[in-house]
């Protein structure tokens, strides 16, 4: 990066102080994962997994999707995905799956020497069906057994037989973890973990909501980094510690009228996973042109807390109703709601080649959202990890054309 470019970045973007705490917490989390793996107590989980259950039972968790984001950020996606492609996996397969499989094959050639070896693989298909086959593949390579937490898609209200079915999955999960890790479950402990999880989610949600202010105290890249503990450390104290620090800083920015970017002129919604390999360049490039993203559909997806008298029922409803497990109509509603609530001028939908579950239907939703909100939007295509699928010039033309609509 040239001197001049660095200078511009400093000018357009305000660094969060809380980021150093975030780094510290995430580093500690990774070291704990390593230690847990050595003690035979580590499970890999998908991002939408009811993680409070393994946490309650003393099982540590690692997130291959989060590791995929690290591979993306370190710009080695094509190389690590390539290892999976050499094994015969299609380029059409999700790049989180490909990079995970590639790094299991060659941990020594992967960032951080790969994720620590798992003793169990916990897949919940409330985000997509790919995770099951992906974990099956990892299971073949590592010998760790797979547990499928099956959450049929919800469309509108969830029928009672459907809830009962998912509830049985929770019971099976407890049984599976007890046998695999020789541990036990207690509802009392789940309540404690659920409370911790809820507290972190509440603090996080308050930071997100603060972005309704003008200028917005957080931009997209801030939230994409800050979401790491809500994904990986739900139900633990460090998550609360971080979200408290973040919220304080956010509130301080709001009270001083300081924005995440220095000169906020256009407020946009971001839809889908970000391109990790160019996340700063991308969002800071737009920030330099006065564009801020006070809201996105991705970091708003972790919002349900476990509560109520029947905790298992709460697990069922929170994890059946995650964003990606609902129909297109719910996604359109959510986008319209965010555009209104955060007073946004338009939206960008990133059509992520890897993630069919997130990206399918975007062309239709784009029209619907435009119709219902009256603000313009654009669909750009690419991927979150595999930078080979990201064409800068084509994306730039679409972004430029969108921004020209606001002139």
């Amino acid at each position, binding site marked *: 990066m040239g001197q001049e470019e660095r200078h511009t970045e400093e000018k357009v973007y305000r660094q969060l102080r809380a980021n150093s705490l975030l780094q510290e917490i995430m580093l500690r989390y990774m070291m704990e994962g390593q230690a847990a793996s050595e003690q035979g107590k580590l499970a890999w989980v998908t991002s939408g997994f009811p993680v409070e259950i393994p946490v309650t039972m003393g099982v540590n968790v690692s997130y291959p999707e989060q590791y995929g984001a690290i591979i993306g950020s370190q710009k080695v996606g094509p190389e690590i995905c390539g290892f999976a492609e050499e094994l015969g996996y299609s380029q059409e397969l999700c790049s989180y799956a490909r990079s995970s499989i590639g790094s299991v094959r060659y941990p020594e050639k992967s960032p951080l020497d790969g994720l620590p070896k798992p003793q169990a693989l916990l897949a919940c298909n409330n985000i997509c069906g790919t995770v099951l086959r992906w974990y099956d593949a990892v299971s073949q390579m590592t010998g760790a057994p797979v547990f499928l937490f099956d959450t049929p898609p919800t469309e509108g209200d969830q029928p009672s037989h459907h809830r009962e079915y998912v509830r049985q999955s929770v019971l099976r999960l407890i049984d599976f973890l007890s046998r695999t890790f020789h541990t036990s479950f207690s509802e009392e402990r789940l309540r404690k973990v659920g409370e911790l999880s809820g507290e972190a989610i509440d603090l996080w949600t308050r930071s997100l909501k603060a972005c309704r202010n003008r200028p917005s105290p957080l931009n997209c890249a801030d939230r994409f980094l800050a979401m790491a503990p809500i994904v990986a450390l739900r139900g633990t104290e460090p998550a609360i510690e971080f979200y408290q620090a973040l919220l304080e800083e956010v509130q301080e920015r709001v009270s001083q009228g300081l924005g995440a970017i220095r000169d906020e002129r256009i407020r946009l919604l971001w839809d889908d996973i970000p391109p990790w390999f160019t996340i700063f360049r991308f969002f800071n490039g737009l920030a330099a042109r006065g564009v801020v993203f006070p809201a996105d559909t991705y970091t708003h997806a972790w919002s349900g807390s476990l509560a109520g008298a029947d905790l298992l029922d709460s697990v069922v409803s929170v994890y059946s109703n995650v964003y990606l497990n609902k129909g297109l109509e719910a996604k359109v509603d959510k986008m319209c709601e965010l555009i209104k609530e955060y007073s946004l001028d338009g939206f960008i939908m990133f059509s992520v080649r890897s993630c069919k579950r997130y990206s399918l239907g975007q*062309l239709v939703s784009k029209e619907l959202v*435009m119709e219902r909100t009256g603000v313009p939007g654009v669909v750009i295509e690419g991927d979150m990890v595999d930078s080979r699928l990201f064409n800068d010039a084509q994306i730039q*033309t679409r972004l430029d*054309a969108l921004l*020209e*609509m606001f002139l």
Partner: protein
Amino acid sequence: MARRTTIGIGLDIGSTTTKGILVDSSGTVLAASLVTTGASAPIAARHVMDELSQTSGKELTGLPIITTGYGRTSVEFAHETVTEITCHSMGVHSLNPDIRLLIDVGGQDSKVIRIGPNGRPTDFELNDKCSAGTGRFLEVMARVLEVSIDDLGPLALRSTSPSTISSTCTVFAESEVVGRIGTGAAPADIAAGAHLAMAGKVATLAKRVGLVTPVGVTGGVALNPAFRHYLSKQLNSSLWMPDKPQLTGALGAAILAVKR
């Protein structure tokens, strides 16, 4: 800009051709130029500037220049760059303010733009990832049929029963056409089939943005009568085309330059 001016220059640097227009504040075109882009966009842009200067007899130094098109950032003497989406929209609006939907098909891409009442785009879709649905598709077909690209359209219009070209991929369509030649299909029918397939792709893009009449067509491919014929049929709508459909992007850029 140090001084106010009533003349502006628009340069549209496309992958196939580079176009330039000089307009005054009343929107009158003082000069126009079109050259092949070739290997160097900056050289092509210089060439166009020289032609504009010669045709108009004007000294162009100091006049505001806006560049557009895929090569828009490659010319260092431009004062501003604006996307071809906004430029085509503005250009067409200045020629026919009634047009609300514009279909522009160039050598390497096609775009559909919804034009707002003030001439600014309000929505758009681009196809720039796949050569089917662009001028390149027809160029390949002309080569296989051994006719010049200018003769391909008129040839297709002689057909009474277009061949079916099912592939939506240029490479596969090429082998499909070779197959049709092998089975003795008439060149006119094959040419018509190729236009039909291509117009179908473009029509799908247009429908995605939403059909609003009257529809305008621009870009080099708009000059092809068979393309217009089949597109008009597919959209079930008449099509308006400006006199020089390749130049609307440069025109829009020039109009924006005058307003700078």
